[in-house]
């Protein structure tokens, strides 16, 4: 299969996945007790106003009609209207999306770079102090609940030490950089706004480190295990016997192969990061999609929740598609597969 065929197939799968996601979220939203119309107009409104509101929201029609209406809207790029804010869900999500992407990318970058480095150190200096320290760090990572880690980080670095800001994306006194990508770091770099750049980076530190830490642990453990496995293989012995220096064997011959399983995990990791972002954004008052959806949940704002779910599912599928496309670059043997 060639690349374009593969992409087409994946996109086809994406449509099916999204259909499934809408169906499930739609059904869930209709079995959950609670009446969004009531939430919106308040407890004291009379029956007539309520009925009018229900009609306005389309809640008076049979469920399957509502579902088809929803799908019809989706095809036209309409994710419905947020009950809470009364603005189109798509616009809401788009305005919060860059903040989440920025947070997730930084968390990811941190987790991947430091995770690979730690895994590499651990495997190279196997059974030494470096190895033990790294592994303890990794075990702590997989066993620390994110909210606890976030709160502790806030307490220590924000409240007591005061080294880092603890909420939001920017110092409130600073104007956001010119909107280009919506990622503050990128935008301020492009527009040369060094004050905004510094502030946005400082604001990113705590949330992205907390969010990335757990994934870092997973990646470090995986890289360690696969490095150790690879270092035992025949071609490593060939390289040694041919006089290739140990350091070069490690970073060129072994790491390259050890990274193959890691890349898959990085794709899956991204999904977990998106999930973790909801919690992180809440803890650090990060104005992203996660915070938006938490606010929507407490309001039973189903169009908003469903829109969020769709976006996350889409990003997840696309990221894993990219990972699968990268795979053959690392592992020539599966070139034939797609």
């Amino acid at each position, binding site marked *: 299969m060639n690349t374009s065929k593969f992409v087409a197939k994946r996109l086809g799968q994406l449509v099916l996945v999204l259909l499934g996601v809408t169906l499930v979220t739609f059904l869930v939203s209709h079995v959950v007790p609670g009446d969004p119309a009531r939430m919106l107009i308040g407890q004291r409104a009379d029956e007539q106003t309520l009925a009018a509101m229900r009609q306005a929201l389309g809640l008076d029609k049979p469920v399957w009609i509502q579902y088809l209406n929803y799908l019809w809207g989706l095809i036209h790029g309409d994710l419905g209207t947020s009950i809470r804010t009364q603005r189109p869900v798509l616009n809401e999500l788009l305005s919060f999306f860059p903040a989440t992407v920025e947070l997730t990318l930084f968390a990811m970058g941190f987790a991947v770079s430091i995770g690979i480095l730690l895994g590499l150190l651990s495997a190279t200096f196997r059974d030494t102090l470096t190895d033990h320290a790294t592994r303890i760090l990794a075990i702590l990572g997989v066993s620390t609940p994110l909210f606890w880690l976030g709160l502790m980080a806030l307490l220590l670095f924000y409240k007591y030490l005061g080294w880092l800001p603890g909420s939001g994306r920017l110092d409130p006194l600073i104007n956001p950089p010119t909107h280009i990508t919506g990622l503050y770091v990128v935008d301020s770099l492009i527009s040369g706004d060094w004050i905004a750049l510094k502030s946005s980076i400082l604001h990113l530190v705590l949330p992205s480190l907390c969010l990335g830490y757990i994934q870092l642990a997973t990646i470090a453990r995986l890289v360690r295990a696969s490095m150790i496995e690879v270092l035992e293989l*025949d*071609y490593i012995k060939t390289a*040694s*016997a041919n006089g290739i220096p140990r350091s070069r064997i490690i970073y060129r011959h072994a790491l*390259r*192969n050890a990274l193959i399983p890691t890349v898959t995990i990085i794709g899956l990791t991204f999904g977990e990061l998106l999930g973790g972002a909801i919690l992180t954004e809440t803890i650090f008052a990060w104005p992203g999609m996660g915070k938006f959806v938490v606010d929507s949940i407490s309001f039973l704002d189903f169009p908003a929740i469903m829109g969020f779910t769709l976006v996350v599912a889409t990003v997840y599928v696309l990221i894993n598609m990219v990972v699968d496309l990268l795979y053959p670059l690392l592992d*020539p*043997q599966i070139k034939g597969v797609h």
Partner: protein
Amino acid sequence: MEPLLKIKDLHVDFLSYAGAAHALNGIDFELFPGEFLGLVGESGSGKSLTANSVLGLLPRKNAVIAKGSILFEGEELVGKSEREYQALRGKKISMVFQEPMNALNPAFKIGSQVTEILKLHQGVTAKKARTEAVRWLARVRIPHPEEIMNVYPFELSGGMRQRVLLAMALSCGSKLLLADEPTTALDVSIQAQILRLIRDTTDSLGTSVLLITHDLAVVAQTCQRVAVMYSGNIVESGPVSNVLRLPRHPYTKALLQALPHLDGPIKALQSIPGTVPNLLTPPSGCRFHPRCSVAEKRCQADRPKLLSVAENHYVACWRESHHV
């Protein structure tokens, strides 16, 4: 003539909680420039260990050279640092292994793996390394070497990979090739081809070869001299014509009796009664005595030395008259 490689009383131990296993128990042999020496013995007798010791490739965490010396071009290798070994490996002494399937890195093209070594050892430019690499691939009789430069190892057969590995091993002018069962994992039909290739290429380069094998027929066809190993010792060594036609050591005799014809198909060495000794608690005296049909009393008490019985022919056995 000065030997290229001279191993004297080499002892290698494996350390474990159960104690030290004397896996090489005082090995002696010499290898002369341009010579093709066969090293035979049952599985576990220490053949690979011998080759790995020469190249400093013993597992660092549990193996030690307890005693002895390895002289290469008159220079002591025992005790050299990893860095000093690196300068020898691939440049003065090379090795090819039994299993060619996984001996090339699956992530890199053949060309990149061959040129890497040339660039490393000869400091040539990438362009020069490429022409050299193609020349070497042609030299090991790989058809269409330019195309092979651009393929990945998984696209090649076992025989082709072994050719590539041989080219890599010889490309930087090694004087000694350690070939550890280089054809055992290959298809029977190409074993002879690869052996002939090793033979011809090293002949024309003047490279000495230590050929490790299970197969006495291979020894008979390709080697000038042979050393027979048993449980960490060399029990007999000498010119192939002497050792295989007029074996002196009971173990060598048993091996040859287990073989229907020397030029027949491959035959394993296992058809001698008894088992290879456990290295943690090896038999006292001559390690072969529990399996030896002509063992005497002193065989259990003392270890026989490897001594000359004829011109260039050495045997370690109490039954040999010179030991009296």
